[in-house]
């Protein structure tokens, strides 16, 4: 297991000081962490909790006051370790006067990649992040989501073993968010280690294997997501092929009471807004011309093709005329 430790911090402390050396803020206090190969590790915490400071210390953008940060077994201040790291900052801090191809070529050069390799990788990554149509536009003209995509592409230009993502879903629409999360999961499948910090807890929950929760520069919680989120005092069950009615509720309550439990809630599950949104966008692509029709008085919501109304508030263009 020791060989599988990709990132290790020992008593890592960062204190911000003013010009005269007076202490301004303890950003991180004695952080001890181990991040293993192939896992997706999430750093959580409120603003100013030390998440970004931790990432900057791991990247050598800041120097620790005490303790040390080791990446691939080397001190984080060593430049050589960067050969195996991909970093996506919170904002895509890229040169906005370059286009996508030039951007990736520039970062490829920084990895000392030969020209043909740079071209191949740039093309592959541009396709992967879905910017093939816009690869000749300068980044200044990109939307925030597009910049985030090209930012991710530059982070992957060297096919890194460790990917560090600072707020990777920031500025992305739900489709982009899902795409980013899928991509993070794909990176894990490829055996890469991912460290991400995010304010969007649902994103972290969806993709992370382990998380660390920081507050005021101190580590508050560390562990596997499913273990940390498990509520051992409650039991959840799902069933299908049933209609909910009072008799069923009463019977279940009796059974649960027999085992010392108590029925807290029973009802039909709801989907997430994200799933709903993604399904609608998908359907609109599959059925061009459909649009939402407001239900007439006394009618249930219905589409012109009589499909299930929930999640499909669309009607085909010109349906009224046809029908």
């Amino acid at each position: 297991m020791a060989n599988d430790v990709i990132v290790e911090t020992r008593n890592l402390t960062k204190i911000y000081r003013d010009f005269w050396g007076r202490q301004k803020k303890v950003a991180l206090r004695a952080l001890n962490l181990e991040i293993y190969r192939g896992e997706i590790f999430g750093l959580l915490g409120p603003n100013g909790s030390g998440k970004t400071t931790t990432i900057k210390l791991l990247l050598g953008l800041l120097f620790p006051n005490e303790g040390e940060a080791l990446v691939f077994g080397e001190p984080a201040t060593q430049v050589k370790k960067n050969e195996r790291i991909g970093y996506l900052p919170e904002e895509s801090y890229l040169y906005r006067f370059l286009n996508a191809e030039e951007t990736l070529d520039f970062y490829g050069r920084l990895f000392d990649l030969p020209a043909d390799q740079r071209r191949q990788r740039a093309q592959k990554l541009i396709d992967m992040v879905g910017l093939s149509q816009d690869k000749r536009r300068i980044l200044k003209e990109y939307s925030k989501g597009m910049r985030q995509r090209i930012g991710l592409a530059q982070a992957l230009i060297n096919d890194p073993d460790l990917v560090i993502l600072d707020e990777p879903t920031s500025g992305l629409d739900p489709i982009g968010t899902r795409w980013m999360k899928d991509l993070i999961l794909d990176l894990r499948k490829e055996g890469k280690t991912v460290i991400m910090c995010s304010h969007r807890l649902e994103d972290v929950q969806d993709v992370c294997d382990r998380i660390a929760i920081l507050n005021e520069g101190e580590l508050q919680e560390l562990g596997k997501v499913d273990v940390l989120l498990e509520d051992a005092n409650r039991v959840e069950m799902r069933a299908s092929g049933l209609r909910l009615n009072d008799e069923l509720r009463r019977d279940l309550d009796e059974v649960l009471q027999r085992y010392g439990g108590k029925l807290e809630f029973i009802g039909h599950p709801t989907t997430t807004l994200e799933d709903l949104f993604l399904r609608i966008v998908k359907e609109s692509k599959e059925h061009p011309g459909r649009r939402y029709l407001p239900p007439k008085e006394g009618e249930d919501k219905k589409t012109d093709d009589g499909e299930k109304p929930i999640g499909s508030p669309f009607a085909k263009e010109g349906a009224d005329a046809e029908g």
Partner: protein
Amino acid sequence: MFAVLVIEREPLTWAQLPGMVQLWIEGTGVYAMAGLVLVVLFRALRPANAPLCSAPIWKATLFLGSVSLLLLAAAGVLYAADSTSENRSWVFRSGCIGAITAVLLPILENLFSLRWRRIWALAIISFKEAIRRKVLWVFSALALVFLFASWYLPYTPQYQLRSYVNTVYRAMTPLLIVVAGLLAAFSIPADLRHQTMHTIVTKPVERFEIVLGRCLGYILLMTLVQFVITAFSLVYVARGVDPAAAEESYKARVPVFGELTVERAKSVGREWGYRKYITAETGNRAFWVFHELPDFSKRNSVRCEFEFDIFRTTKGVQGRGIYCTFVFETPRWNSKRLNDYNIDREWLSANLSAREADVRAQSERERWFPETLQRRLRLIQTIQAFRAQTEKRETSDRDQLALANALADEYGRYELRSKEVRDYHTLFIDAPGRLFAKKGDETSDRPPLFVIVRCESPTQYLGVAEHDLYLLADERSFEVNFFKGAIGLWLRICLVITVAIALSTYLTGVISFLVTMMLYLAGLTANFIQSVAEGTIQGGGPLESALRLAKQVNPLVPLDQTPTTRLFLGVDEVFRFVMRLFLNVIPDVERHDLTNYVANGFDIPVGQLVVDNVMPLVGYLIGWMVVGFYLLKSREIAA
């Protein structure tokens, strides 16, 4: 005509290179030691630090630095004991070399990690950024100069070219310097502010590569810009050159300068002590000693150009200059033969067309000594041979040159009397080529040529400076020389870019730019600052000057030794000490101003460019690159 090359400071030569290197080591070594002490103190006081290099190299740096510090301290003790001790120099020099090596060790280690591809990528980014952000449009301001400058320039035919050359260089210089300073000073701070630096330093990029890449990028950009502007300027300057101006300056003279000695030099009371004066009354002479000459032996004549200052104590003749005698002497000349020389010259003037038989007949008639006959036969033979060689030349000119060549061949001397000299006008003499012929009887330890100038006109003074008289070795292309002159400006651009980038690794863009410009402006007045720092300027330091102003005491009158005066003088001494410390930080900008050469039609020797311009600049910029390395390496990028 008015081609004057005023060189107040003799350009450095290859022979001075060891001395230059020694001076550089001594000057830089002290700064290196001070810098190293600061770095060690800074790292000791600030716990949040990244290693500057690997642990063994850092240990070696500390060890070498400690030894050097001891050596420098020992040199100080030796100096206090005996300021003339030769040992002190060696101890001091060893300490300096050790300190420089100690400071350079981390950089040398870092050099192995540098990759050209990364440096080039960063250079290209600088290039693209400036172009795509349309920074270069600022240079269109020069179009105003090209379009309207001629409206305001005084038109005198022979001055035309010089005025235009000066104007375009004066217009180009501030614009290019300021833009280069702005671009360089704001580049790294902008990357830090916009955090684009984060995505760069998290790649395997050595921080020194960022400094080098930025420097290279902006230097390339400004080189391209300057090349285009220089080409336009050349077209502007060269179009429709007045023939008088072309004769004056549309060339690149290759001069051979001698070393000037003036016998009992006279002062005419001028404040600028550049020229020394000779006069007919005292009979004092000006000697130019030429220690090295190119091979002139195959030439019929060698042009000697000169321009002198005339200080008149009487009006003289309207529209006339004063008269001087010019004497060219080689090691073959024997002053005991002066009488023969004068007699032969008169005889030859009267018998230029004589044949050998005529000479022999005359010899028999006048009963010459045999050696006189032989000598005059040789003179006549030389004249005939010369005539055969130069059939196409005009007769009168050819005859005079033939006579001069014959005498020069025989005696190793050429004398021209009553040559009219006009105030600040470039005139010339065609010295006979046979003067420079090798005959094997030269005394090897004597310089190959002396040129002696005497003033003949009574009551007038002739002012001479070392570069007022020279032999014209060649005339080269003005166009090429114009671009060579631009190299001086290019070197200043490199200086500004490197200094601004080194400073911007720690300071903000605005401060970096201001400090760079302050250094540049200080460099323009480096001579004045040096004279203040060394206490050689009249009027003393700032407090003494203020006191003199307040008391209305002129700079030459000693001040009363009151307690206030002593206090002021003491404070000035401290001020001078501080200024001396910073003297080496100020760049010698004036050194790189080569406009004078181009404007006056003098070739800029490539060797001089390398030794006198490139090498001192490289020596100066090495220090700034080291500063850039240490500052950026020690800096927290995300702080």
